[in-house]
């Protein structure tokens, strides 16, 4: 097995992705190239600058605490790959 870049391995694990060897090699090369490109951000004059999370900095509007949608359980369960007895089904977690 080829040696893995620890940063890539960590990010892939956090992102719940499991690239195969060929894909991992491509991702490693691409991630390095992207990080090289974004490295230029480090030289920006931002010592006194606050992060801008949202372009218009709108205040979050509040709305009345009222139920506006009824029971949507059946509607949403119908979209799931696997359901049973009104629940989502996944592989057993505990034996």
């Amino acid at each position: 097995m080829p040696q893995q870049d620890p940063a890539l391995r960590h990010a892939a694990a956090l992102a719940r992705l499991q690239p195969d060897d060929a894909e991992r090699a491509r991702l490693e090369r691409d991630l390095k190239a992207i990080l090289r490109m974004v490295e230029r951000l480090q030289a920006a004059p931002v010592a006194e600058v606050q992060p801008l999370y949202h372009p218009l900095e709108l205040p979050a509007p509040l709305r009345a605490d009222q139920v506006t949608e009824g029971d949507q359980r059946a509607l949403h369960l119908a979209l799931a790959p696997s359901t049973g007895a009104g629940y989502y089904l996944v592989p057993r977690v505990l034996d």
Partner: protein
Amino acid sequence: MQGVLETARLLEQGDASSEELTLDCLRRARSHGRRLNCYISLAEEEAVLEQARASDQRRARGAGTPLTGVPLAHKDIFCTRDLPTSCASRMLEGYRSPIEATVVRRLREAGMICVGKTNMDEFAMGSSNENSYFGPVANPWDPERVPGGSSGGSAAAVAARLVPAATGTDTGGSIRQPAALCGVTGLKPTYGRVSRHGIVAFASSLDQAGPLGRSAEDAALLLHAMAGPDPLDSTTDPRPVQDYPAALAAGKERLQGLRIGLPRQFLDERLDARVGELIQESARLLEQQGAVLREVELTHQDLAVAAYCVIAAAECSSNLARFDGVRYGYRCEEPRDLSELYLRSRTEGFGAEVKRRVITGTHVLSAGYQEAYYLQALKVRRLIRDEFLQTLEETDLLLGPTSPTAAFRRGEKIADPVNMYLSDVYTVGCNLAGLPAVSVPAGFTGGLPVGMQLIGPPFSEGLLLQVAHRYQELSDWHLQHPPEPPPGEPGQAGGTPP
């Protein structure tokens, strides 16, 4: 197939019926659309013709709106009830949304008839439409070249005269760049002008929906129907929507003394020389009509792509965490345990570019890297936004190219993601700053269309459309269209997954 305005006139004057035009759109989608691969799914014929007949009856009763009975296509990122919403991903292949996007609902209520869902880069990540699970889209001007992305199917369908207009979304240029590369008009509104409810999320602080059409007039008609506050999207702005179509007529007067800034960083040596000449010629045309040109500086422009790459990737890694193979979307076969279900469903369900961005985004948000990359990019975003706003106080709008080159060849950049991201060098700044911008056809190089971009201050869509419309009164680039292919055997529209 005519544009929106001409189609509306035909319907109004009784020279055509919505039923005839809708059927024509479907037939063209199955023939030429199949060759371009610009549709992922098409409306069921009898159901959509029934809607068209109802539109004809409404018009006959005098109960129509200007858009009643006019066909359109939606990018396959908008949730629809009648058609599946795949976002061009295996992850959502065949997905039927329980909700309808506000944009879809508003255009439906305005009377438009949705004939199909257009191809795109998977989850709107791409600048060439080569990242679709349903295969690449061909540029109607040269099938060996890309149509741009991510709204490449919408731009190609409008350019090829398959449909009067289409919707798109723009996170880093995904309306404007394909509009430029296909020779159509595409508008990215101010962040908050159009509801994002029911649009599959890519990067929530950057995503915005808008129209692609033949002309500024068509874009104005669609935007007027799409825009406005929406209680289902708390980031929509409460101010009322301007009557964009009515405002267009004032474009001639509006140009008198209009201060147009030409950002030096948009017109430097990195721009294709012929594209640069065409943009300068377009600026001079507006100057001859009374506009005042001046060079301006956007000193932080060189950081825009880098900041965008970090922020968009971070937001996409968060948004796409919802695809876990449990509640909806693709699930792998026979996972041994829950961990494998997550890992294999996501690894098998996402394409290469989506995985690249999710991993990049996860990395820049992870402990030890967040401050160096993500927070730094957000600070640079403020520099870029503030500089745009300050420049737009000294000028009324900015003018430059939409894309550094005309359409490039398929395969030319796909193996080099950084080079691909640089395709959006002139467009991402508007998304970081939340500004509106429009791309209009401004000439040709080597037989391929070139787009001019106009950028305005927040909520200046009316001004942008006025100037774009006046430019189109003075030029005929937007009236050019690619050659019609020879009639072929009708096929089944819709791309083919690998």
